[in-house]
């Protein structure tokens, strides 16, 4: 049923991949429809689907067959990225462009290398014995795997939030102030300001402003995860990587996290790994679909594009089958 509607929509849409169609449509109107309500999607919505959040035409960036215009300032470019664990290649030949000031979702079935790819954006794969990344991962044109680039510096620019909340065993305040303190900020008033603004950005301030000295472990799971977001934001990263940030949380907490992501995505680049397609549809501007075709083959990037076109008008039949729930 859903597939039929998707098919119908595809024919109804006038070449959704055409950049000319995409440019100039107000990003705010491009509210991504809830996946379950696809039957109600109008042709206009599909038109909007190819809109980009950061629709500035600074640089043209190849994404497979599709040519999309993107702003490269602060953007990630991946070129032929392969990741090996020992002898086994787990991710192969990923080339894509991740624009700044937007939310990009990595979707795909379990074990398809989404998290592995995410971890190579802040060199966290360095910490795994035997892991090797080849190809270029460029942040603002600089290859972060270059020998001259320090992993510690990359990670201070590219923050990360993990699947399970991992607050440090200390107070709420100390968790958020941890990063700034490491960077040498000592003045109490300055720290207070950073802690407050980070907690506000993570939509946690109103709940914890009176109990900042409480131990972080006393917070609920959803609060802990927003605390981890605040902790990551306190170091003012340009990019925030999120590895299934809501998968261990209840629906209400998930909603709060998603709202936070939507707000943050206007200011910074967010890359989110999720196995929840509805979540990808709700929060992201761009979507990349990854797939491991067999247990022996490495994972590959199948398709990238604006979230709406991926969800309503996928170019690859494998993407369509995954989106419509035929596998994965």
């Amino acid at each position, binding site marked *: 049923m859903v597939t039929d509607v998707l098919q119908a929509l595809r024919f109804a849409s006038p070449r959704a991949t055409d950049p000319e169609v995409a440019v100039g449509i107000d990003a705010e109107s491009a509210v991504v429809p809830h996946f379950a309500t696809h039957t109600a999607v109008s042709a206009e919505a599909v038109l909007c689907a190819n809109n980009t959040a950061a629709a500035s035409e600074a640089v043209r960036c190849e994404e497979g067959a599709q040519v999309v215009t993107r702003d490269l300032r602060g953007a990630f470019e991946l070129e032929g990225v392969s990741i090996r664990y020992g002898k086994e290649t787990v991710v192969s030949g990923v080339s894509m462009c991740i624009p700044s000031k937007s939310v990009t979702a990595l979707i795909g079935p379990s074990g398809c290398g989404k998290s592995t790819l995410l971890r190579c954006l*802040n060199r*966290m794969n360095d*910490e795994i*014995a035997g892991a090797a990344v080849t190809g270029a991962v460029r942040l603002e044109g600089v290859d972060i795997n270059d020998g001259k680039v320090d992993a*510690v*510096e*990359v*990670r*201070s*620019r590219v*923050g*990360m939030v*993990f699947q*399970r909340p*991992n*607050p*440090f*065993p*200390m107070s709420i305040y100390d968790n958020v102030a*941890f*990063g700034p303190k*490491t960077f040498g900020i000592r003045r109490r008033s300055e720290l207070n300001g950073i802690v407050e603004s980070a907690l506000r950005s993570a939509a946690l301030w109103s709940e914890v402003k009176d109990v900042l000295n409480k131990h972080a*472990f006393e917070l609920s799971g959803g609060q802990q995860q927003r605390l*981890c977001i605040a*902790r*990551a934001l306190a*170091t003012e990263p340009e990019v925030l990587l999120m590895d299934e940030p809501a998968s261990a949380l209840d629906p209400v907490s998930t909603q709060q996290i998603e709202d936070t992501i939507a707000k943050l995505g206007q200011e910074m680049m967010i890359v989110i790994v999720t196995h929840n397609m509805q979540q990808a549809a709700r929060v992201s501007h761009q979507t990349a679909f990854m797939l491991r075709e067999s247990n022996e083959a490495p994972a590959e990037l199948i398709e990238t594009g604006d979230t709406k076109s991926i969800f309503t008008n996928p170019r690859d039949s494998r993407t369509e089958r995954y989106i419509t729930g035929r596998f994965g």
Partner: protein
Amino acid sequence: MSHSRSRLNKESARLANNAARVAITLSALVSIAALLAILCFLLLNSFRAVGEVGLWEMLSGTIWHPTSSPPAFGFLPAESGSLWVTLIAIVCAMPIGVGAAVCLSEFISGRVREVAKSLVECIATVPSVALGLLGMTFLVPWIRTFFSLPSGLTALAAGLMVGILCLPTIVSISEDALTAVPDALRQGSLAMGNTKWQTAVKIVVPAAWPGIFAAILLGFGRAVGETMVVLMIAGNSGLVVQGPFEAARTLPGTIASEVAEVVRGGLHYSALFAMALVLFLSTFVVNLIAAQVIDRSRRRWSR
């Protein structure tokens, strides 16, 4: 037919289960009984000294002259000796032991780590009398010339050697506590742009601190009870020890050196048992606290 057989099997399984449970309970009871028996034995034998000399007079008496008349049974020389030797041992072993544990758990991995770990634990298999000999031939002369003392047989020499003896305890228990810290915390810290070193010092060690503290307490218990090394190289003086460069005798050292010469059932004999009781209670309490701390820190991460 098959029905009755399965019933039979069930019956025998039940019997075996009950027998095993009884055996396990019995063995647990035996260990507890042994502990209580030791305590009772020490208490009974020390009654006479406590009655005739007085508990406080023994604990705080500064003179230990068990064979003069009238005899003096002050424990303070031995208590101060034990305290100094143990203090020196812990002060030396703590930074080295905790440092080694951090290195093992945070900075090396794979085969190198396994080999290094078992080498450290090998120290525990060295007989303490061998370490005593080593101290006597190398450490004691060195201390005498380096600090220009009349004799190298000092609390310092014994403390250093006892420190080596409590290293394996401190290293292996601290290392357990450090590896029990969830990897998610390390990942979180590294992902914020902290170096491995900052992560270890600011996150992992504080998170594992209760376990490390317990390791130090257990090392303390090990050091207080050590007999042979102090008997050989502490100098065995009968005076209250006031510094690391003085000759010392410890509680276990005093008991071991004198128990063979006393009259069974006499006052001196009873005083030695009182000394053993003090030693037993102090190590028992320290170990109890350590066990509590370890238990609490283990529960902390199992949520």
